């Protein structure tokens, strides 16, 4: 069933406003998505009718807040097919989730001479924590290279695992720049065969396609609520046995079982990793976002984005000075499966200027390196422009983009 985009847009109050007198065309959901009434309402309801601190109070309101908070955790767990809600750790964002693994598991297990393998297409969030862990420990950081078409060179992985020194393999499930969907299940299989831990960055994938952590074969998966119609919270999913054996990342209230003058014992998973008062209303809001996305259907969302992105690629081909990053076609010329992201550059026109002129038309795109500087280095580009699509975008938005790019060429083309 195709998405009823007009009806979906009605659910997002932000589309009532105009930008520079024009209809808002929001093409930057890969950075952060807009919020539907259901999510805003769930948070407002919490604050107006059901707010108290969780896991502490013995009064009705506290018990209600705790139940709503834990119900949201269970929804999030079902959304990614986690085996147990206890495997869901609420954090600030995907970045914090990945840092949690790097600091907790990494500090405990990585030693001098070990190796950490990541890919060249990683967002800084799944790169800098590993780079810095490697530097702290005197470990080696190695990259699986990416070719011009945006494909991972999987042949590079087995040699990096052969000597048994690799302890962690970290990989994005979906690139935030190249639109590529790396073969992560294969990466996980190869890495596990060599005894390495597999950490996946799901920030781009979880909002846009069905994700089943058990089928992925990952040990950890981090993602952000704010990219999936939810508020500013994030999630770390980890296998229970791993989380259970890991030391805490942050210390304080709620993460302890008992505290004496000179020692403390830790609470059980996941509370061991949720020190201090969590973002209660936001987690409840993320639960509402999960309900909202489930009602539309993740398969339908993925299919919708494929359709929009292929339409965008076809229309961008009308502009010869536009060059799309990553190939849209496979070896036999077949259309490749892509996420709803199109990054591009234009001959002799800086991405900043593209973004500014598009803004005049009410069109929001990202311009820069999209937190993927090493990837842009590989592609020999200082920066690029990126349009990303979600449930509230349709062909009209693509047409508006193309028309505005013609204007860019008219103003800035030599």
């Amino acid at each position, binding site marked *: 069933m195709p998405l009823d985009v007009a009806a979906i847009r009605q659910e997002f109050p932000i589309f009532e406003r105009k930008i*520079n007198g024009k209809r808002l065309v929001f093409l930057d959901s890969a950075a952060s998505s807009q919020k539907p009434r259901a999510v805003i309402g769930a948070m407002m309801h919490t604050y107006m009718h059901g707010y108290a601190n969780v896991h502490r109070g013995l009064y009705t309101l506290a018990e209600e807040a705790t139940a709503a908070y834990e119900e949201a955790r269970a929804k999030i767990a079902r959304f990614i097919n986690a085996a147990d809600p206890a495997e869901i750790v609420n954090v600030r964002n995907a970045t914090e989730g990945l840092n949690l693994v790097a600091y907790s598991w990494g500090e405990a297990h990585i030693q001098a001479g070990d190796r950490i393998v990541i890919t060249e297409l990683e967002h800084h969030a799944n790169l800098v924590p590993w780079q810095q862990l490697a530097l702290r420990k005197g470990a080696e950081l190695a990259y699986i290279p990416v070719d011009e078409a945006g494909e991972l060179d999987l042949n590079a992985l087995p040699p990096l695992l052969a000597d048994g020194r690799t302890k962690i393999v970290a990989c994005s499930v979906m690139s935030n720049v190249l639109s590529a969907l790396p073969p992560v299940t294969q990466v996980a299989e190869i890495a596990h065969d060599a005894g390495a831990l597999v950490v996946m960055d799901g920030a781009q994938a979880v909002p846009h396609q069905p994700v089943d952590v058990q089928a992925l074969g990952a040990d950890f998966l981090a993602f952000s609520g704010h990219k999936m119609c939810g508020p500013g919270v994030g999630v770390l999913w980890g296998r229970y046995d791993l989380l259970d054996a890991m030391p805490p990342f942050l210390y304080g209230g709620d993460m302890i079982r008992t505290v004496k003058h000179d020692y403390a014992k830790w609470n059980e998973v996941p509370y061991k990793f949720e020190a201090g008062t969590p973002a209660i209303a936001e987690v409840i809001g993320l639960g509402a976002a999960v309900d909202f996305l489930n009602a539309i259907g993740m398969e339908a969302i993925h299919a919708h984005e494929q359709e929009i992105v292929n339409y965008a690629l076809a229309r961008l081909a009308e502009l010869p000075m536009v060059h799309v990053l990553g190939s849209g076609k496979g070896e036999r010329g077949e259309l490749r499966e892509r996420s709803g992201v199109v990054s591009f550059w234009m001959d002799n026109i800086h991405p*900043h200027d593209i973004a500014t002129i598009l803004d*005049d038309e009410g069109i929001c795109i990202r311009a820069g390196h999209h937190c993927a500087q090493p990837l842009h280095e590989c592609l020999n580009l200082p920066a690029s422009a990126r349009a990303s699509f979600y449930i509230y975008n349709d062909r009209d938005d693509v047409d508006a983009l193309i028309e505005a790019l013609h204007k860019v060429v008219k103003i800035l083309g030599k």
Partner: protein
Amino acid sequence: MSSDLYREQLLDHYHNPDHFGVLDDADVDIEMDNPTCGDMIHLTARLDSTGRIAEVMFEGQGCVISMASASMFTEHVKGKTLEEVAAMGLAEIQEMMGGVKLSMGRVKCALLPLNAMKEGLKESGDL
């Protein structure tokens, strides 16, 4: 309206920049970039016997704002004392660019040549 940024005057400087190139025997010779957007400038300058800016040239790549700002800057700072350069800020750069109002995200682009000059003068020991 941001289209204001793309008025004829700035586009002229962008497409046909003034003093594009590198000075020989420069007192100031510096490369600076905006890593967040990939704008890059190589600025060279000579001082006269009284310590004022005598000549400035630049080369580089970047957006309309950074490149037009650099082109206009090479003329604008000629004859200024180093104290005058040190005191320059965003207001003067916006004025220099014909009174444009820059959004927060574009301020860094416009300031790239000025920041390069200040840094270059520091490196050369003149400031």
